[in-house]
């Protein structure tokens, strides 16, 4: 039996997340992945912004930094650059990572700095009560879209890949063993790695879509029924993929990592051959 208590600040539990929320599932997956790396807890810095997912660092026994809305990647960049030996992980909700924090996300991808970002993508602003986010499905109702949402959504994986991230994966809070693998591989990847985790928020989102979901279990089943593994997706037409989403390790590339590049620059300058 895996002993989570080694990695948890057990006295801080229970957590604030609602019944039916996927964040606890992702937290456990993250802990198992970290355990597999064998990293010393003192060498791990877990950074977050603001939102439900961003409360996660408070529950885990690492160096933890709960910053301002959208700014986790910026803080994490400072931590990593100032002390490259740290393993730096950012956890963020979809609004935090893609709306208010979108600028930092795209530039971290471009720099390919050795940080892992896990997006807790439930398609809604949960903490403030269910307003639409950059990943709310078209047509869904939200606290600020009472007549249905009219904006197209961001594909986190395509965005990260397009901006230069060198490891991009997508999992769900339903397919847990796969998620463990994606997070583990993202952690040990050298460069900027992104894991988009499709989740559900029943409390503020699901129950507004009465025609789609009867309860929170149906939201999980939606993940099961609409996730298409990467290999299978290659055999399907665009028409067949409509309304579905692709899971798996979606992109991997070799590219110089930012901190190593900077250290090389410093060595060159100090050596007198800039």
């Amino acid at each position: 039996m895996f002993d989570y208590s080694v990695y948890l600040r057990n006295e801080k539990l229970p957590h604030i997340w609602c019944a039916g929320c996927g964040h606890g599932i992702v937290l456990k997956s993250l802990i198992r992945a970290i355990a597999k790396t064998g990293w010393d807890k003192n060498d791990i810095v877990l950074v977050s912004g603001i939102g439900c997912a961003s409360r996660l660092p408070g529950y885990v026994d690492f160096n933890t930094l709960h910053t301002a809305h959208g700014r986790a990647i910026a803080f994490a960049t400072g931590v990593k650059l100032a002390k490259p030996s740290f393993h730096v992980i950012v956890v963020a909700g979809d609004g935090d990572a893609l709306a208010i924090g979108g600028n930092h996300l795209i530039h971290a991808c471009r720099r390919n700095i050795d940080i892992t970002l896990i997006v807790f993508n439930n398609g809604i602003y949960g903490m403030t009560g269910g307003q639409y986010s950059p990943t709310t499905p078209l047509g869904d109702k939200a606290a600020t879209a009472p007549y249905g949402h009219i904006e197209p959504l961001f594909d986190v994986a395509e965005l990260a890949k397009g901006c230069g991230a060198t490891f991009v994966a997508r999992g769900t809070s339903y397919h847990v063993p796969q998620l463990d693998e994606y997070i583990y591989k993202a952690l040990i990847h050298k460069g900027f790695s992104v894991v988009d985790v499709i989740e559900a928020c029943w409390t503020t989102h699901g129950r507004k879509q009465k025609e789609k979901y009867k309860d929170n279990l149906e939201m999980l089943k939606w993940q099961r029924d609409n996730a298409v593994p990467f290999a299978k997706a290659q055999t399907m037409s665009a028409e067949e993929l409509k309304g579905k989403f692709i899971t798996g390790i979606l992109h991997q590339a070799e590219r110089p990592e930012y901190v190593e590049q900077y250290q090389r620059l410093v060595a060159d300058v100090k050596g007198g051959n800039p």
Partner: protein
Amino acid sequence: MTERREVFVQGNIACAEGALYAGCSFFAGYPITPSTEVAEHLSEELPKRGGTFIQMEDEIASLGAVIGAALTGAKAMTATSGPGFSLMQELIGYACIAEVPCVIVDIMRGGPSTGLPTSPAQSDLLQAKWGTHGDHPSIALVPNSVEEMFSETVRAFNLAEYFRTPVIILGDEIIGHMREKLSIPAPGEIEIVNRKLPDSDGVCRLPYRADGKYPACLPNFGQSRFHVTGLNHDESGFPTSDPSIVQESNARIIEKIYHQREMIDKVEVRYCDDVEMLLVAVGSAARAAEEVVEEYRRKGVKAGLFRPVTLWPFPKKQFREYAERAGRVVVPEMNMGQLRTVVERFIPSSKIVPVNLVNGEPIDPEFIIFTIEKCR
């Protein structure tokens, strides 16, 4: 290098050199006129010393990276100007409540909005104190020469490290771009303050435990596992909404500044023993004010200069002492009356002669004298 080094440089370069002297090892910034030379100089010098320079995607990211670096133990700084300073305000509050030492250089320019990017102004005197939301400590220093851009930057780091709070340097376009002789002190000539850390052995369970009048004593990341948040927190660093704890900790981060304000206060007082007409000014406006004082003295008018080098916290005790002697208090500034609103709290408005210039030109002695004479 063990000797003084004499150079002829811009104020912005002096600021960057001051940061290096103080031990700054991390700079993150975003280009903005008229502050950019600070970043340019450090992009050249920090790598030579094994330090870190990064140009971030905006000013918010810059201060975020600075705070992240500071938490690992680095002495960290950013530099900007009005619009960028506005963007940084939220994270200034973060550094205040999380008690993270850092230095923010604001080379002021004309505003509001994009305003006059290449022209001088003193537009952010109040933003430096009231810009971020919520009650918070504020330390802001206003140099008025190239020498002071160096020495006040060193002092800013020392105060930031000691009080564990962000310290703001308010330069302006004139001071930032003006060239003067700078004599860089030899190492050890100016005392350098490093942050106090808890004992390195053992786990620090209460990183925010502090005497009610003093700063907290956080470990660096890696020294002990702990939690940092912008939420109100208790001594353990974890969020709380317990009214008595919130009241106490909100008060402490302000009282830690006032409790030892003699360490922060710095004023320049000239010709004030028998003063009848007191000029109160900061930064480049104080240079013009000093000439005005000398001109009036030559004519037999008992004029004097009171220059807060530390603007925040405002040196009210020292100011009252001289302002009460004077029949008139002249406040020349390159804004519409920001310093005047501070001065008005301590003396009757009827004694005040405001001198305000917001046209992008440097305020000059003739304009100040003209305004004083007009108000007679």
